[in-house]
Structure formats: C-alpha cells, structure tokens
C-alpha cells in the first residue's frame, strides 16, 4: 500500500478547499469500506485522504413527515435501519442498507459513500432514484442540488466537479399509499455483489387497486444505475394487473445494456431485469396493501 497523507477536515469549507487544492489525488474518506480496500489493492492511487466524519453536516440524520429526510453523506447504514421513522417511510432504502456487507461493514459504510463510489451495482442507488432523492453538493462556488439519477456518470465516475463534495441526500416525504422496495439477485444468500438489482416505488389510489404513479430503477445492467423512465411511465394511472407489471418489466429489460463478466452473463442479466422488476413492483404493491388503512 502506497504512502498517503491523512487530513481530518472539520468543516465543509475546509474539505472543499482541500479538494480544490489537491485535485484528483485527494479522496474523501467516510466509511472507507470502498476507498481503503481500493488503496490497499492498488486500484486507486491517492496522496491525500480527507476524512469528513468530523463535519457536522455530513452526520445529519433527520426525518420530518412533512419535509422528508436529510441524510448526511457519512451516515452509516446501521443508523438508517435503526431509525424506526426512516424504516417506516422508506422501506426500499432500508432493503438496501441491510444487505450491504455484514453487520460490521454496515457500522461504517453509508449511502453517501455508496453513491460516490458510483459502482454500477450499488445497492443503495436504485432506492434513491425511485424515492426521488436529490444530492446536495458543496463546492468552491457554493451549493447545488442534482437528482440522484444524474449523480453517477460512468463506473466510478460522478457528476462531482473539481473541489466538490457530497454533503447530504434529501428524500421527499412519502405520499399517501406509497411504498418502496429493493431486491437484488445474487447466487448465494450473502457476501455477493448484485448480478442485477431492481428498485421500485409505487403510489396507489385510496382503494389500493389502481397505480397512480411508479418509479423503477435498475443496478448492474449498465455503466451506471438506471432510472427506467419508460417502464415507470407505463404504469401511471393503470389498474394493478399482471399485464401492466409484465409490460413494465419488458420496458425495463429494453433499457438494460449489461455486460458479461465474472458475476453474470449479459443474457442472464437481461433476463433477470424482467424477473426482478416484477418482484420489486409486486413487493412495493404488497407493502401498500399490507399497510393499515
């Protein structure tokens, strides 16, 4: 492992200044469950490691039933699934946080880091996309916000510009009769990276018979996690039916452009997009139906 300097930043502006000064040889350390492994295995060279865990804003976890969730960039998974209000409001996000690594990893790894690592197979990103999450970014020119589906630009690449860092993620408060769901396919029951991941969020009518709107997102079938816009739109204002769900699954398969690698073949992944999209949609619908009226 190469030598590097460790800096413990105390404020967002200090971190941003450092990032701006050091350029791409500086990396932000939050949970470190990706960064330290990458550095140790020589997959990423870095001269500066900027620890942001002492910055108050990146540790914020606050939920309000009117305004929604503010999730600091360094909040680890375990804090999310230990929060009853968050679990109740965003079950699809919780689905992802409980399957990332084991218990020890979940004590460090966070949703913000999962987003910034920009893996095509990141489990947390499809839930963020279906939950309409936005990313709050700080940089030398101040703050800006972008939709979560626009955050990843290529494997390991993000929309962050020089000197910018992710401060927090904002998720709107859930609507009436809405629920989310995320699942992935892995050949084992644990300790695997998603061969395919699918997330869905669904809003039903009062009678829970009709879909008002839906959002579908996919992982591990393209260079970035994908928002399945057409598949989502197909479900708007439709009765719940196998036909409707099959059509959405087909539309989701149409946008998948997977590769074959050691984790799965392209054909297998395309097939699984259909299977998982159906299961995610049915899972989200079932959650709404299971909610007390």
């Amino acid at each position, binding site marked *: 492992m190469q030598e590097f300097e460790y800096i413990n930043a105390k404020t967002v502006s200090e971190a941003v200044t450092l990032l701006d000064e050091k350029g791409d040889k500086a990396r932000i350390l939050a949970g470190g469950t990706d960064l330290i492994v990458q550095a140790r295995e020589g997959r990423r060279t870095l001269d500066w490691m900027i620890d942001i865990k002492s910055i108050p804003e990146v540790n914020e976890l606050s939920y309000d039933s009117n305004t929604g969730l503010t999730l600091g960039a360094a909040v680890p998974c375990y804090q999310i699934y230990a929060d009853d209000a968050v679990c109740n409001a965003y079950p699809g996000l919780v689905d992802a946080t409980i399957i990332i690594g084991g218990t020890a990893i979940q004590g460090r790894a966070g949703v913000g880091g999962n987003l910034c690592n920009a893996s095509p197979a990141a489990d947390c990103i499809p839930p963020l996309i279906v939950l309409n999450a936005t990313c709050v970014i700080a940089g030398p020119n101040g703050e800006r916000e972008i939709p979560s589906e626009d955050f990843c630009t290529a494997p390991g690449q993000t929309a962050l510009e020089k000197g910018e860092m992710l401060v927090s993620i904002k998720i709107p408060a859930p609507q009436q009769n809405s629920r989310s769901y995320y699942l992935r396919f892995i050949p*084992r*029951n*644990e300790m695997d990276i998603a061969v395919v991941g699918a997330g869905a969020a669904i809003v039903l009518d009062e009678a829970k018979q009709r879909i008002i709107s839906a959002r579908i997102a996919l992982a591990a079938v393209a260079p970035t996690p994908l928002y399945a816009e057409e598949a989502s739109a197909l479900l708007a204002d439709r009765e719940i039916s196998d036909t409707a769900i099959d059509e959405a699954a087909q539309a989701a398969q149409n946008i998948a452009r997977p590769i074959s690698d*050691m984790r799965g073949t392209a054909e297998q992944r395309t097939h699984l997009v259909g299977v998982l999209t159906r299961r995610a949609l049915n899972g989200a619908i079932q959650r709404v139906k299971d909610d007390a009226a």
Partner: protein
Amino acid sequence: MSENKEYKVIGTRPIRHDGVDKVTGRAIYGADFQITGLLHGRVLRSPHAHAKIVSIDTSRAEALPGVKGIVTAQDLPAAEDKMADLGEGAVNLKYLCDNILASDKALYKGHAIAAVAATNPHIAGEACTLLDVEYEVLPPVLEVRQAMEPDAPILHDNIRTSSLGETGEKPSNVASHLQHKKGDIEKGFTEADVVIEREFVTGTVHQGYIEPHNATALYNPDGQLTVWCSTQGAFTVREQLAEILQYPISKIKVVPLEIGGGFGGKINVYIKPVAALLAKKTGKPVKVLMNRADVFEGTGPTPASYLTIKIGATNDGKITAAQTSLAFEAGAYPGSPVGAGAMCVFAPYNIENVLIDGYDVVVNKPKTAPYRAPGATNAAFGTETVIDELAETLNMDPLEIRLKNGAKEGDRRADGPVFPRIGFIETIEAAQEHPHYTSSNGKKHHGRGVASGFWFNIGLESSVTISVNPDGTVNLVEGSTDIGGTRASIAMQAAEVLGIPAESVNPTVVDTNSIGYTAVTGGSRTTYATGYAAYEAAQDVVKQMKARAAKLWDVDEDNIQFADGEFSSINGKEEQISFRDLSAKLSQTGGPVVGRATMNPAGAGGAFATHVVDVAVDEETGKVEILRYTATQDAGKAIHPSYVEGQIQGGVVQGIGWALNEEYIYNDEGEMTNASFLDYRMPTCLDLPMIDAVIVEVPNPGHPYGVRGVGEVPIVPPPAAIANAIYDAIGVRMTELPMSPDRILKALGKI
C-alpha cells in the same frame, strides 16, 4: 450409531486439546511468527497466462531504499530434468523448481517470476512494481479439450505423451495416458438391455482454506536452515526444500505452526523455498506471505475435467459394463489426480467388464494440487449421474440399483485391488432407513437426489513417542499436522490403551528434528496411521510399565497384568497399582519411561459414503437452494464422533460449493477474473442447512480399533447428488459444474 461398550475413551467426545488456544486466539499460525531482524518478502507474479521471459531487470527495484535482496530463478541451483524423490512419489525436478520461480516461461497468470525482501511489506510490494520484466506473450490454452487438439499451443516442448509404455514422437500437452481393463467391455455392453452414455464437464475449483500460505526462513551462519510455516507435512516440506535448493536434508529444520485449513492444498511448497532463497541472500530471517489473489492464482486448484461415462445394465438393474474416458487438467506441469480419479470412478460397484482411460493434460492454469479425495469428485459426478439415469430408465429406486450392484468384501476393482471388509452396502441401507429418505418431497420445484462415493485412503509412515509424567499423565509427541481434530483422535487412542482419560494425554505436534519421519496429513491417513502409531507407542509404554511393576513387587514380568488402567500381579502375590500411582514411582524403579512406535500400515481400508439431498430450484432465476442434506458414511470406528461429523459436514459443504457456484472464471487472455472470496463463490453458513451426518461403523480389519479415514470421501457425492435432485425438481439433467444460476437458466431454455 452403534453403542460400543467395550471402550472407555474411544467413541466419546472430549474437548479437543488445542481448543482453548484456538478459540482464545492464542494459537500461533504461520503468519503470526515473529523473530528479531525480520525482513518481509513479496513475490512478483506473471501478468500473462503464457509467455517467454525475455529478461528481468532488477536495477530500479534494487535502488529503492529498504530493499535488501532480490531473487529470480537464477538463484535456484540449476535444475536438471531428473526425478526428485519426495518420499511419496517422484517428481520432475525442473518442473518443481520452475513452479517456484519461472526460469524460461511463465505458464499461468500468477506464476512466480521474482521476489524481493525489504524492511517492510509495503516497500517489498512497491519494489515489485519496479522490477522490469520483458515478456514475449504467447497464446494460452485454457481448457483440456482444446489442449488435446493437435494444433493447440504447446506449453512444454519436451513433453511427449507417455501412453501404456509407449512415448509419443511430437511435443504434446497430453503428458500421459493410463488405462485399466477388467473383463470384456464389448461383451458387457452386448449383455446390457440399457446403455447410457453421457459427457460431463467440471470447472477448476480451489481448496479455499482461510489461511493463505506463509513461510519464514532463516539461515544460520553454520548453514542450518530453519523454516517456520503452516503445512500439512513438515517432513514433505523438508524433502521439497532439500530437492529444490539442492541442500542437505540434515541441515534443514521445518517447524510446523498452526494451520488454517489445507484440504490437500498445503502439501506442495510455493513460497517456502523463496523465503529460504531471500534469507540466504540477505543473511536475515525473511517472512513471505500470500494474499488471497496470490493463493487463487499461484497455488494448486483441483483440475477442471472432461469425462465420458458409459454404463450398461440389464432390465433387472444388474450393471454389466462401464467405460470412461477421463481427461484432467494438470495445470502448468504434469501431475493431475487423474490416476486417483481412475481408481475411484467405478469403485463403488462390482462390475464385471470395465474399461477406464485417463489423460493427464497440461494447460495454462496453476499447477493443480491435491484437494480432498483428488479426482474422485470429478469422476463420481459422471458415474453417479448416469447411474441415476439408469435407475430412472429401469424404473428402479436409485438406492436399490446401488444396493444391487454395490461392492462388497472380495470384489475386485478394475485397477486391481480386492476389497477387504468394507461398508458401502451399510451406507446405502442407512440412507434408505433415514427419515429423510422415507419422508415425502412432493412440492413443486423441489427435488431429491442421491449419490454415493468412494475414496481409497492411505497409510504411510508415522512416528509417535509417549513419555510418562509422574502425575500419571503422558506427553504424546507426533509429527502429523492437526487440521481436523487429530490431536484429539490420536491422543484418545493412546488414552484407551493406557486406561487414562483423554485429558491426561498432552499431544504436541513437533518439528522435523524432534520426531521420526511422518508423512503428510493427507489421504485421510492421520487418525488411522498416526493413531495406529500412538496405539503401538502406548503398548510400548504398557510393556515398560509392566516391567516397573514387576520390579516394584519383585515378581516376574510375565506375572503382571494390565487392564482398566490398573497393573496387577497374578500367580501368587496379590498386588495392584494404578497407572497413575506407578507413574510416580518411575525414578525409584529405573528412571523415565518413553514409549515409541513407527508405523507404515498397509490396511487403510476404503471409505464409502451415500448422500441424500433435497433442493428447491427458483425457475425464474436459476438459483438452487439446499433444503435438507443427509450424509451416511462408513467411519470404521469413530474415535471422536464430533470430529467425524465435522469432517463429513465440511466435506459436504465443499462439495455443495463445487456443485453450485465455485469455479475459476477466465477471460480470453487467460486471466482469472474472480480471484477473491467475493467473486469465487464459496457457500457461507447462510446458504446451507444443517448437514445431518450419519456415522456407520463397519470396523476396518487393518486397524486395532477398526478406524477408517473419514476426511475425504464426503466431498465425493455432493455434485452428483445435487444434479440428480435438480433433475427431480425441474426435469433437466445438468452435466456441467458448477450448476450456477446462469447454467440452470440455459438448461431451462430461459436464456
């Protein structure tokens, strides 16, 4: 399980002697070893699967501060094409040396090229990036059938196929061809009413031990070389070092530290000679450790294979003929376990007409190493699947067809040996009677499969000494690495003889200077052969202690009896003394008592197993879940039933991994793309049900307590049993391992 009342210690379940050290983290494993002045070594490995090494320039690495020494194949004594004697079989010395540090060609990605010793591991690692190696890249050959093609890239210009006493004329990747014949194969198939012939492919899989390879070496100024390491056999390490380094065996001491798994993969040496070369060059102790990728890419997996199996039977289920062709990947150098596969392929069945052909084929993958019943699992996958199909065709219960044809005492294997008393039939009967097999399994997408397996087990040399302590305990010194609880199973055999509790025996595994020659912990031999030596050494103690009692009571030695831990005088004087009390009187009766024995027993007795598995298949994703697993096995006599069960469970789990997801995945350039535990998918506890281990005891006539080795055979049946269960669930026969979700989807026509 039979209740055997004749024993006091054997068949009980005492806490293992090494348990406290291991559960408290105090046990010293190879990587834990520390010594003053230690340098750290790192090996540079080939990025190419097949390449000529044109030149190695070490100058930039040498200039890095902290670098203390660099070695390449040039630092090995010039290896000739001669056979090296390793006790257990001769090996071509040049191949042996070239696998340690490549001299002219890199034959697989991960092949060791050079090594650096530095003041810390990070500097050694950085220095490796400064070694300039010029390669001439050659096309790799990565699959056994491709390697056998006449126009395949050739790995070794000097290999000519050795076939049934003849040597081929042209260079070939087929190093050897063997054959076993019994009866008249044509006649056998003519007599059959049903003949089924199928092809099978199995992937390259690794032993997957948790602890990576490690070695620390030190040369004393007087030329004494000491190597501290984890290994399955300190003496085989000593032999390999002596051959590879061309160094006197008496000047090498190998100190075995605790081992974190081996499964056959820690018999061959890799970095131990490298540590020795670096230690010699620097004059300092040098520790070399592998990481997980090094282990996958640089150490022996077990071979991928291609086999055809053809079996014929009459309408009443009698098998009349069986034929196979087994082509095994040896990896970069000859020496796959195809010979063992050929011994096991039809061994469970008494078949009159048999023809077995085996091919040992080199490919651009790491040199294969033993893995738990090496070769037998590949072979049984084919045989046991075809037997299942035969049973189905003949409308017979799959256990019935095995019962009808199962080998018994006096039956001869196609490769020669005649079975002594064996317990195959008893394992089938145990499976038939088990509530698992008698329960229903009617759910949709659920299936049940069965399969059997055989492993011959081995004996080989073991030495044990036992010294008596004044408090009635004994110290037992042995040379067998304890991988699976053998300190306990060996100590218990001595305790039984001495009439003392298992806890009163203190077993210690010692270095090569401190005990007589002892062969590797492998071949399921340790509880059998070292246990046998412990039994004999304890008998020696009893004999000497009888003499002390005779002296004490002033009677003739013939008048001393020993039973239940008590010495007594017969014929006249009525005297009695316990083993413990007599132990306190040794100094006054002539001094210390040390019993000793060396053994090389021939009657290992074969091991058989029959497994039953239920699976659920998700037809949408192709994922197979193991719902229930029952493994019956003839242990001969279970010395410590918990560790027999542990061996059975561990073997089954490795077999499940091999069956479902484990494999080396290669890209076109011959690079393994999944050299990590993340992507080399071994099952975790979340993927497995509790494995129900059923011990059957048909005593082995070749051991005083009837012991048969138990460690290997449980890995043999699982892939076939699971394939048969998948067929039962979804109606497709899987003929390629692993039966991973994508292959299941393909077989179902979903992709």
